[in-house]
């Protein structure tokens, strides 16, 4: 958790040319792809409305859908574990591993796993976690956190991957082909193929939990999630409680906006529905099936002004379109969830005291809300966090003082005009006859990077009154 160091993190990110180059790609690839996908489906905007309404309905009836889901899973021979905290969820995973004397666990991409810091915990307990999503695999080798919720290694260059593979795959011939992304991908595929086949436990996340059928669903492109959950004896699903949908039809409504918003695909390559363990006739599939339902602060968001955040389906569109994310990347945000959704969620789950910069580091440009498939009013929720900070006196005292003074004046138009006319004259003086100001008290941060244009002489109202027009 390094969200309290956002400014420093951002500074470092801005000074990292390799990261800046990677972010250039984010700016272009995701934005264009999502726009084309939205344009190619005439009902896309209506589907967004439906997706929003489905999630709202679920949140209002979350207790009942969760109970139904549990009943269905149990009836199919699966196991449901409820975890109020991250520690509870970690322990539940460990207990399952212990029961099966597991030494290795392959893992599909799961943000919940990142949230509960499962990998470190498993390692401490003698179980080797193996990330199998290519991006997650790369950052696991590098001992880094993901910088994007659907493209975890988006900040890393091909050259860096090559170096990592040389270092970690030292048993492979020195002169093997490594010159392009394809050869690196095939190398990882080969290495991970063996891991899939020998793992004791497979751990995946879930994009949906379907109450109607007691089904967990993963949406992926690589096929690693499927190999993770099909080959080992035990499949463990990590899911947060808000992933529930009432029925298959509701899931389809949301699927139609999910991939289109995320990568611009109409459907991701693999959408896999899992319902319990291997059946009598089955020749493959896990013998045990466990779902761990994680709360970890989410139920405390229900019924508050932040409830709408729980509609989030983790597509990443908000960060893909965020000018601040584009500038600093995901690591600057300091925790698992970056970008606008993270700036709302992180304070909700970890406390605003530790992440006070996040809601403020937004220009409120509104592009995140414009593209959110479930229409979460992200700027409004960020503003709510600013209100909490203001109430709790968490915002810097200099800022509060300036705001006080300004508000005092702004409520008194005559006094305000006097003050602004003094400010205007001062600024004109500081310009020394040029069109802009190179030095100005209180505006150092502005002037460091740009000129301050000089005001025209005389305020609007003074000129207007001189013309005898004032009303």
């Amino acid at each position, binding site marked *: 958790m390094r969200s309290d160091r956002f400014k420093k993190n951002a500074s470092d990110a801005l000074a990292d040319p390799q990261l800046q180059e990677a972010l250039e790609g984010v700016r272009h690839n995701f934005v264009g792809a999502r726009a084309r996908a939205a344009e190619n489906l005439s009902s896309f905007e209506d589907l967004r409305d439906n997706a929003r309404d489905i999630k709202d309905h679920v949140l209002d009836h979350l207790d009942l859908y969760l109970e139904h889901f549990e009943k269905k899973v149990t009836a199919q021979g699966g196991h449901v574990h409820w975890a109020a905290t991250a520690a509870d969820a970690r322990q539940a995973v460990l207990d399952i591993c212990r029961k099966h004397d597991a030494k290795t666990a392959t893992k599909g991409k799961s943000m919940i796993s990142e949230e509960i810091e499962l990998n470190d915990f498993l390692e401490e307990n003698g179980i080797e976690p193996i990330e199998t999503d290519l991006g997650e695999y*790369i950052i696991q080798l590098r001992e880094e956190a993901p910088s994007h919720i659907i493209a975890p290694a988006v900040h890393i260059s091909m050259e860096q991957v090559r170096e990592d593979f040389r270092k970690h795959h030292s048993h492979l011939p020195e002169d093997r082909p490594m010159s392009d992304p394809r050869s690196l991908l095939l190398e990882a595929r080969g290495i991970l193929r063996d891991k899939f086949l020998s793992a004791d436990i497979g751990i995946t996340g879930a994009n949906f939990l379907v109450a109607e059928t007691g089904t967990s669903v993963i949406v992926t492109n690589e096929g690693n999630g499927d190999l993770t959950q099909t080959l080992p004896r035990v499949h463990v699903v990590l899911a947060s409680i808000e992933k529930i949908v009432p029925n298959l039809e509701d899931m389809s409504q949301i699927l139609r906006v999910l991939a289109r918003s995320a990568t611009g695909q109409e459907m991701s390559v693999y*959408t896999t529905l899992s319902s319990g363990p291997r059946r009598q006739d089955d*020749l493959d599939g896990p013998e045990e099936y466990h779902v761990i339902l994680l709360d970890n602060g989410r139920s*405390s968001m229900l019924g508050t002004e932040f409830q709408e955040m729980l509609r989030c389906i983790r597509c990443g569109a908000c960060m893909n379109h965020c000018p601040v994310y584009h500038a600093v990347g995901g690591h600057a945000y300091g925790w698992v969830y970056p970008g606008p959704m993270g700036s709302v969620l992180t304070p909700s789950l970890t406390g605003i005291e530790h992440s006070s910069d996040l809601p403020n580091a937004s220009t409120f440009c509104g592009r995140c809300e414009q593209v959110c498939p479930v229409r979460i009013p992200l700027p409004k929720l960020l503003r709510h966090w600013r209100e909490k900070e203001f109430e709790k006196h968490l915002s810097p005292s200099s800022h509060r003082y300036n705001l006080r003074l300004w508000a005092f004046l702004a409520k008194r138009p005559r006094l305000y005009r006097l003050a602004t006319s003094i400010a205007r004259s001062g600024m004109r003086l500081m310009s020394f006859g040029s069109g802009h100001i190179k030095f100005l008290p209180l505006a150092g941060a502005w002037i460091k990077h740009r000129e301050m244009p000089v005001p025209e002489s005389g305020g609007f109202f003074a000129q207007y009154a001189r013309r005898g027009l004032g009303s």
Partner: protein
Amino acid sequence: MSASDEILSKIRNAVTKGDNSQNRTRIVQERIANHPAGIRPYGHSDRTEIRKLFVEKAEAAAASVAICDSGDVERQVLEFLRQHNLPTALRMGDDPRLAEYGIGKNRLLETATGVSEGADEVTLSHAFSGAAETGTLALVSGKDNPTTLNFLGQNHIVILKEEDLLLHQEDIWNKLRDVYGEGKMPRTFNYITGPSRSADIQQTLILGAHGPLRLHIIIVKG
């Protein structure tokens, strides 16, 4: 108090807002039982149109598609293998429909059955259905079509009967309910849209990640 009680009572306190619980329960039960369909994006009704849409979308997702009569399926399989210089050997499930097409009968193809253990160049499955809206195949687990065949082969060939091809996911859900019963599912249900892929290295899209490098669909006209 158990963890589930703790979580559920927190949720209940936050969301019920004085609504009587019977009413809430009824709403939830009805939504699950009636599973009302939302927006279905396409209006196609004609079988040929649906097939055309499926082919267009599947090809856009980088799958290859062949269409043939039921007597010609094996020849289409061999044609795909020849095109890509693949051995004339494959692994498939026990699906009786595959036997009906005579696959492996003439010894032009060496066939193995059962689960894949990761060394198969070519695997063959029979689809449960397909959704034309996105060129997506629907496959169900079971001894007829083990799930490992969908993911462990380097090349995956899937046979889809034109009569099983539907327009939307909602149509497939109804077909599933007809076969498995209300609220019931096979252990694994796979939607597959094109071959596996990744863009995790330098945002460069590469086909063929952990799953098959190629996906070939043979549509059998009914």
